[in-house]
């Protein structure tokens, strides 16, 4: 069980790298969907005695349905309706953003073992995976030009926060965890609507064109 959990954490981080390097929108959306599905498996893998099983099952099912299925579906619909060009040229190039991501991940993994965990022992990869996923998400949001990519970056960021939230499944009220899923859904939903309008206004989802407002 331990090695399987290890593998899931590592895959989550590898998907971060893939997203930082990927130039194809469809592949990126699929990667985010895979990451969501992996994250859905995590609460089950981390399940130990003492947690409420029903609560954990609910969390996993919710994460799978929303992160793994619903949101990717919405994203695919958005890019189909907006017929977005698949190639994209980021503000920060693929190689620099990959290297930056690598540095962040290395730091997260190198130093997270020194952070004291007041809540008792957790899986050694949990905190670094969460932090590196948050970091990769930030990089993606900041460095990409297309609205869809920024949304993807935001999703990755949210995934990182979710991983961190797993640390608290034992002590946190259900509400906050439900908040994670709900917020994700709501954010993308509204973003989707906005994107639809962006599409109508500009026939493109390039946020570079959203640059009339500046000083």
């Amino acid at each position, binding site marked *: 069980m331990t090695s399987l959990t290890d593998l899931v954490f590592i895959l989550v981080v590898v998907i971060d790298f893939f997203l930082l390097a990927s130039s194809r929108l469809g592949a990126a959306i699929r990667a985010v969907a895979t990451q969501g599905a992996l994250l859905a498996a995590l609460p089950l893998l981390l399940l130990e005695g003492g947690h409420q099983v029903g609560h954990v099952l609910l969390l996993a099912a919710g994460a799978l349905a929303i992160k793994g299925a619903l949101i990717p579906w919405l994203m695919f619909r958005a890019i189909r309706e907006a017929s977005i060009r698949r190639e994209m040229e980021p503000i920060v190039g693929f190689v620099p953003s990959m290297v930056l991501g690598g540095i962040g991940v290395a730091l997260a993994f190198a130093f997270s073992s020194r*952070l*004291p*965990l*007041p*809540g*008792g022992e957790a899986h050694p990869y949990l905190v670094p995976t969460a932090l590196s996923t*948050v970091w990769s998400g*930030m990089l993606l*949001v900041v460095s990409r030009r297309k*609205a869809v990519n*920024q949304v993807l970056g*935001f999703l990755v*960021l*949210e995934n*990182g*926060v979710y991983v*961190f*939230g797993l*640390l*608290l499944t034992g*002590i*946190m*009220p259900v*509400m*906050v965890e439900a*908040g*994670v899923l709900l*917020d994700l859904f*709501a*954010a993308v939903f*509204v*973003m989707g609507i*906005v994107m639809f*309008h*962006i599409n109508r*206004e*500009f026939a493109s989802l390039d*946020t570079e064109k*959203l*640059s*009339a*407002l500046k*000083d």
Partner: protein
Amino acid sequence: MVLLIAAPLALALVAFAMPSARRRPLVLLAGALVHAAGVLALLAAPPPAREGAWLAFDPLARVTLLTATALFLASAVYAQGYLARRADRDNRVFVGGLLVLLSAMTTVALSHHLGLTWVAMEASTLSTAPLIYFNQNARSLEAAWKYLLIGSLGIALALLGTFFLALAGAGPGGPKSLLVEDLLAAGGALSRPWVRAAFVFLLVGYGTKMGLAPLHSWKPDAYGEAPGILGALLAGGLTNFAFVSVVRVFQVTIAAGEGAFARDALMALGLLSIGLAAVFVVGQRDFKRMLAYSSVEHMGILAIGVSLGGAATAGAFFHTMNNGLTKGVLFLSAGNIHRAFGSKSTDEVHGAGRRLPLSGPLFLAGFLAITGSPPFGPFFSEFAIVNGAFGAGRYWVGGLFLAFLAVIFVGMAATVLDVVQGDPSDAPRVPGTGDSWLTAGPPLALMLVVLALGVFLPAGLKDLFGAAAALVGGGW
């Protein structure tokens, strides 16, 4: 208290369901009146504090709710005239969204559970994004997109910070709770590195919503493109509540023994905000964007006031009220001017004082008030903060503060005088947009309140500011 949150929400549903676009603004007015009555009733007969309750009507909530309900009432009256003139747009989402915003803001003010605070903050972001897009053109779309993206980022980081805080209290002897009271009681039992990290993330997250530099970049765009009424509610209302959230976290951080670090962080962001606003206000030709930078400035002032402690902190809470109401005056009158000229650039707008005999002078008076000219309220609150800085021996802080304020005064004066003075005959004119009591009355009323706060501050209010400041180690 629950009613105060639920009533606007219920009215929002009514607004969404209502078929008549003409009568819908009345729902807004009803929401404002109910809310105002509720706040006054709570002030008159404060509910007893209950152990472990998620909602509490503490001094912080009193100060900010009082401001917000006055502002919302003024905006609701204003909306009657405004929406009647904008009959071309469907106002269903607008009215409903404003009521949801009111409900979310009230929740933030009352919530003592940081998880609930976070959810309400998220709701406020989601409910306002469509409102910014009210004008449905490319520019308002861009503004809405930036607002949503940057706001969501801030919210996500705030959630991470909330998790950090929960983790800080998860150790043996920790409260294992996100209730502010529990966290305060735990104090030193919290894990200090995680409290520190939590404060940083929450300051960045809620600071984004406040519009503290360097995370203010959504502000000029959103305020510039949104209808004036939304600008008033964002700049005078929502940012104050984001500030309240930061203060609650600050409270916990002090209790955990990381107060000095938190003060430094607040001071740094505050000075950065004022300095940045000073740079961008000078030469700003778009008067609504200018107001946005002024909002950045005043968030910086609040952060500095809280960071200084002592009387400066009480001054900061006084300032939330002054700033909130004055921003109402400025945004509402700026909206009138914008509509009458069909432009918000000083290249085209001149002589607002002559064309709009109420809104023009109000804009000028609001400018004088917000830049800290006596005898208006903001002068006294800013004076308290500067006085606190010099009194605490922080001469550099006080000096920089005064220098930036002077630059901002000059910068704003150039823009405002350009708008208000001059000859309007060659400026563009939009028919049917003169001053009416419905559109110019509310800012006038707010202006009188700001003036009154400067001339005579009731002892009850003064004590309230002191009590709010006492939560984070300040007071008159």
